């Protein structure tokens, strides 16, 4: 009996390993046709589901070069000369090509916007909960913030689309469904998550350190800036990276708000698409190479988030313990 129980628990533990490896292998084999067909050029190709003449070199190769180089700058107006018309009226044999650049860019940019928006507010909330508020207020506000995290993402999507987006686009102009509104709602979603972990790592600061600083006449701000922040820095960075990983994979809230069109955004308030949304909207109808390309996207997303979470775990959160 003892042996059976031990073997059983070992088997369950091993299941985690099997599942992760299984996910990776499954995504890879399902993506294989697309990987074989498009190779790594998939990542820089901005055309999704586009008919091109058979045997023709994908013309977009040169275009994608300069778009990728300007990606690092969020506010850059991305010029894409994507105006090549679908000229399949002449009876040339065509094939459909798929490129992942647009959803990849959409995913990264919406995550960056979310981070930029959530970071200062989450830090403020964490400081408030850990250092400023009296214990009972801190408890209540803490629970409220955690309830915000418990609200299903689809609710954020509906609220975002019908109530938040009109206000945002009223202020910044542009479309109601856009990179900006999607990013901001994503920011609201990761806010409680980031605030909770940051508060927890701030709480690990030994009170002796804080008291010594206060005894020397430091203000609260100075104690937080010079004592608590340096002490819990590693954990805070870890929490930011974890929140980033969460934002990358968020589907439903973004699906309502990003606009779901395969087009590189020229401005922040343009609609575009992200990897999870591309999957959510197109998986049902896709088949063959299209489905395989979606799996390719899923694989890219999985690898990115795996890498990000591992970095957060091994380099930051471990040391914080």
């Amino acid at each position, binding site marked *: *009996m003892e042996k059976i*129980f*031990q073997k*059983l*628990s*070992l*088997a*369950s*533990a091993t*299941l*985690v*390993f099997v599942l*992760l490896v299984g*996910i990776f292998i499954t*995504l890879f084999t399902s993506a294989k046709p697309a990987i074989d067909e498009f190779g790594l050029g998939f990542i820089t190709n901005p055309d999704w589901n586009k008919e091109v003449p058979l045997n023709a070199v994908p013309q977009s190769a040169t275009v994608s070069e300069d778009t990728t180089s300007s990606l690092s700058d969020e506010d850059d107006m991305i010029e894409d000369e994507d105006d090549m018309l679908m000229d399949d009226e002449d009876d040339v044999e065509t094939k459909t090509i798929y490129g992942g650049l647009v959803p990849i860019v959409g995913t990264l940019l919406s995550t960056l916007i979310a981070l930029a928006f959530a970071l*200062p*507010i989450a*830090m*403020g*909330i964490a400081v*408030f*909960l850990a250092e*400023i*508020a009296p214990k009972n207020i801190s408890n209540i*506000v803490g629970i*409220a*913030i*955690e*309830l*915000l995290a*418990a609200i*299903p*993402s*689809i*609710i954020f*999507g*509906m*609220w975002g689309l*019908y*109530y938040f987006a009109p206000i945002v686009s009223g202020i910044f102009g542009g479309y109601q469904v856009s990179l900006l509104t999607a990013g901001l709602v994503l920011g609201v979603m990761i806010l409680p998550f980031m605030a909770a972990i940051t508060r927890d790592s701030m709480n690990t600061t030994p009170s002796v350190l804080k008291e010594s600083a206060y005894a020397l006449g430091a*203000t*609260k*701000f*100075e104690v*937080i800036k010079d004592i608590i922040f340096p002490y819990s820095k590693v954990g805070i960075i870890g929490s930011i990276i*974890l929140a980033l*990983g*969460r934002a*990358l*994979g*968020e*589907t*439903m809230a973004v699906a*309502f708000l990003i606009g779901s069109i395969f087009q590189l955004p020229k401005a922040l308030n343009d609609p575009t698409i992200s990897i999870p949304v591309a*999957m959510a909207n197109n998986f049902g109808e896709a088949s063959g190479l299209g489905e395989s390309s979606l*799996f390719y996207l899923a694989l890219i997303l*999985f690898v990115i988030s*795996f890498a990000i*979470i591992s970095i957060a*775990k091994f380099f930051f959160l471990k040391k914080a313990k």
Partner: protein
Amino acid sequence: MRLLINKIFLALSILSALIGLAFLGWILTTLFLKGLSSFHFSLFVNDLIDGGLRNLLVGQLILAGLASIIGIPLGMTAGIYIQEYGRGKYASIIRDLSDIMMSAPSIVIGAFVYAVVVVPMGGTSGYAGAIALAIMMIPVVINTTDSMLSLVPRELREAGIALGASKYKVILDIVIRAAKVGIMTGILLAFARIVGETAPLLFTSETSNYFSLNLGESFPSLTVSIYDLANEPEESSRDLAWAASFILTVMVLIINLTGRFITRNKHK
């Protein structure tokens, strides 16, 4: 000057907390106003095909319940292994992998289940949906079990062993019992999380307009139907989506608060 900076900083911090609370308040108010105005008790009697939500609510609870039946024992035994049996590297690798899996994008898990369950079975099914949710749930249960068991004092285990109990007896009768409340809270929170999930169900269970208890076919899901309804142009569909969202959120928040309430009472 120092004092002024301090004041400004404190004000900013309090402002951030207010912003956070404002978002919660805004979302909840919206839900209550929109949800209650389209809420009617007939929603619990009719199925979606007749403009109600009965089949969706039942379906969602069955999916999440089945996922729990699969996920809780697997997650708990894995957590027990990590904390009680595992020595050295292997256990800590599993712990790290489980943490990574907890943050894996839910849509990717949906795609995985689509490839390994839906395609071989020839179509979407309730089983596929429940499996996808179970995969979401397992790492959360592992994490809770692991951390709750680590809080049980060593002496309790030693006392059990000293009385001649075998190790699994000690684990099941002493350690688990001591950590019961914490684990139950964790499981409730995990349930609250998966019951509101949409992305892993999109192409595994899909949804259905009709009442169904047959897990072998496309299965009614509240969340997937909310997504469909909210995207339809008719006002009436969207009102139904709001009512469904309202019910879903109330359900999730009640489960969540119940979980927190249990631990709180315990600590008093």
